[in-house]
């Protein structure tokens, strides 16, 4: 079992800085998820942990060992590649056994482990097949099996589910979580899918342009995004943003938008008071906006008038795209809503969940 630590790690490709002085620790047995948009440096970070890419600056530790100069095979890691990278000329059995064979395990041990893992992943019937005779989901399992048989200290996953169809992805996501509890190893998992990140992670690390924007437990990051980027990236549908200013009148703070005004509840007043006189961005999550006409759904909060533009029922909820003055907003409301396109609507905003960001520094208050 091992902890992974990156200290001030930078990776440059020519003049392009892919990873910029990141500090990162994955605790022993932790399921750490690196999440961020495409091109933000997730894969590069993972590959530096694996030893497939040299660091330009900084140090990588696995356990207590500095591994900067240790080749991948001696790092006691296993990696699952985004495109599976199965050996096409070998049967599934041989694919699974390859790593053990390279490490000179006795044949009986190899056989035992391969059988065990094949059983665990439900691919026992496929052992004689070649990769080209497998479906996408089966290939994915084999790729994972190839990592698991080695019983390494650390698992590295690079978007392992991104090539699967939606249903299979949800299923494999569940199995991955189960697997982690079974194996009890450190996992560093890369994905651009924030739902995958939220559901799997013990801790998520949000990256952007080679920089770590925030890390923490999924719900912490969701509830308290430290900056505009994280606020907009985590959560689906994405958080609504409005350009606002704060005014104080007779001891009560208000946010003033283009076409609305909300009173800030007492609990948030102290924190938001510092933001007075600054240009600000207000963040409201779609799930914190309610349809006022639905009886008994939500009381309290502040009213917000808008015009509905699009109504998207998704079953458990209805997503409303609306405009409020010059700004657009998204609301996830109860399916009982009778909102119609091009009709006025009155929302209730749960003001206990307001987020306020500085427009210049993009930092949260």
């Amino acid at each position, binding site marked *: 079992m091992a902890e992974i630590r990156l200290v001030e790690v930078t990776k440059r490709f020519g003049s392009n800085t892919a990873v910029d002085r990141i500090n990162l620790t994955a605790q022993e047995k932790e399921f750490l998820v690196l999440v961020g948009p495409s091109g933000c440096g997730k894969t590069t970070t993972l590959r530096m942990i*694996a030893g*497939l890419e040299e660091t330009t600056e900084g140090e990588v530790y696995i356990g207590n060992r500095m591994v900067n100069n240790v*080749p*991948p*095979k001696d790092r006691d*890691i*296993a*990696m699952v*590649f985004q*495109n*599976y*990278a*199965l*050996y*096409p*000329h070998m049967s599934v059995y041989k694919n699974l056994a*390859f*790593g053990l064979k*390279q*490490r000179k395990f006795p044949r009986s041990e190899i056989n035992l482990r391969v059988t065990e893992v094949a059983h665990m992943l439900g691919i026992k019937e496929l052992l004689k097949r*070649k*990769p*080209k*005779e*497998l479906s*996408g989901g089966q*290939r994915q399992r084999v790729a994972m099996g*190839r990592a698991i048989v*080695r019983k390494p200290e650390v698992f590295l996953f690079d978007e392992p589910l991104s*090539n699967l169809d939606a249903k299979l992805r949800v299923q494999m996501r569940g199995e991955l979580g189960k697997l982690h509890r079974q194996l009890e190893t450190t996992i560093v998992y890369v994905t651009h899918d924030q739902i995958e990140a939220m559901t799997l992670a013990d801790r998520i690390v949000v990256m952007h342009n080679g920089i770590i924007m925030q890390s923490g437990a999924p719900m912490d990051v969701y509830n308290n995004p430290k900056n505009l980027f994280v606020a907009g990236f985590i959560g689906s549908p994405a958080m609504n943003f409005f350009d606002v200013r704060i005014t104080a009148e007779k001891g009560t703070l208000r946010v003033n938008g283009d076409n609305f005004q909300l009173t800030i509840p007492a609990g948030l007043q102290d924190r938001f008071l510092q933001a007075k006189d600054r240009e600000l961005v207000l963040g409201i999550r779609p799930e914190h906006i309610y349809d006022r006409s639905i009886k008994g759904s939500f009381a309290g909060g502040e009213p917000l008038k808008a015009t509905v533009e699009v109504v998207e029922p998704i079953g458990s909820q209805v997503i409303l795209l609306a405009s409020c003055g010059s700004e657009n907003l998204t609301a996830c409301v109860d399916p009982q809503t009778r909102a119609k396109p091009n009709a006025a609507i009155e929302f209730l905003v749960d003001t206990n969940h307001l987020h306020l960001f500085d427009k210049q520094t993009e930092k949260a208050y």
Partner: protein
Amino acid sequence: MRMEAAKIRPGDVIAKTLIWVFLILVCIYCLIPFAWMLSTSLKTEAEAFRMPPTWIPLKLTVDSYIGIWVRKNFGIYFFNSTVISLATAALSTFFGALAGYGFSRFFFKGRRFLIGFFLATQMLPGVLLVGPYFKILSKVGLYDTRTGLIIAFLTICLPFSTWMMKGFIDKVPDELDQSAMVDGCSRLGIFFKIVLPIVAPGMVATILFAFLLAWGDLLWALCLTSSEPMITVTLGIARTVGEFRIIWPMLMAGSLVGGMPAIILYVFLQRLLVQGLTAGAVKE
């Protein structure tokens, strides 16, 4: 029954007929020399000179086919050609694959230039190199040896093999290498255990190229060997001409037999030229 044939327009029929006639003519054009070789090889020496010539020999005989082995040293020639061609094919393909792997995976300084340079050497006509090679091989004592000839052929084949193997290896995703690396494989291990088996079908093309080049060569054999024990099939055939006279049936028999291994190899390996070397390896 509806008459489907009624739908065929007269224009189509004429076009089809013309195409067929043209194709048949081309076939005849290509095959006549072979038919003539076969016919002549089965004639007596006297009949070979008969005017007007006969297509079907009046007196069928396989004397020439026996003669090339008994009266000429075709056994030795075949042995030489086989050894030289197989060695050229095997070595150039193997080293071509090694070099191609290097070019495909390592990004060193001057890489692009080197690749271009490799290909540029192919533009030089072989004749230009024969002279220098004669000198060099004489100096190092490899003149008139099979080894010398193999080395010379490798010079010609290697750039081509390298270029081709690089092309095949480029199609093998780098992730397979990396996966094997994480699995505990060395670079050379990856080459032998992962890359080579995957590109094996692609190697057929380079093997064929090198083999045929070496087997069919006359120029280099002529210039770089001299003694009877080193003579290759092509040189042997050439030498049936003009010692005192041309024994046409024997010349034709030798040519036909000499062409066989190349044809057999081609038919044999061609079936291995399959598509989809890396099917199932990665998800595109």
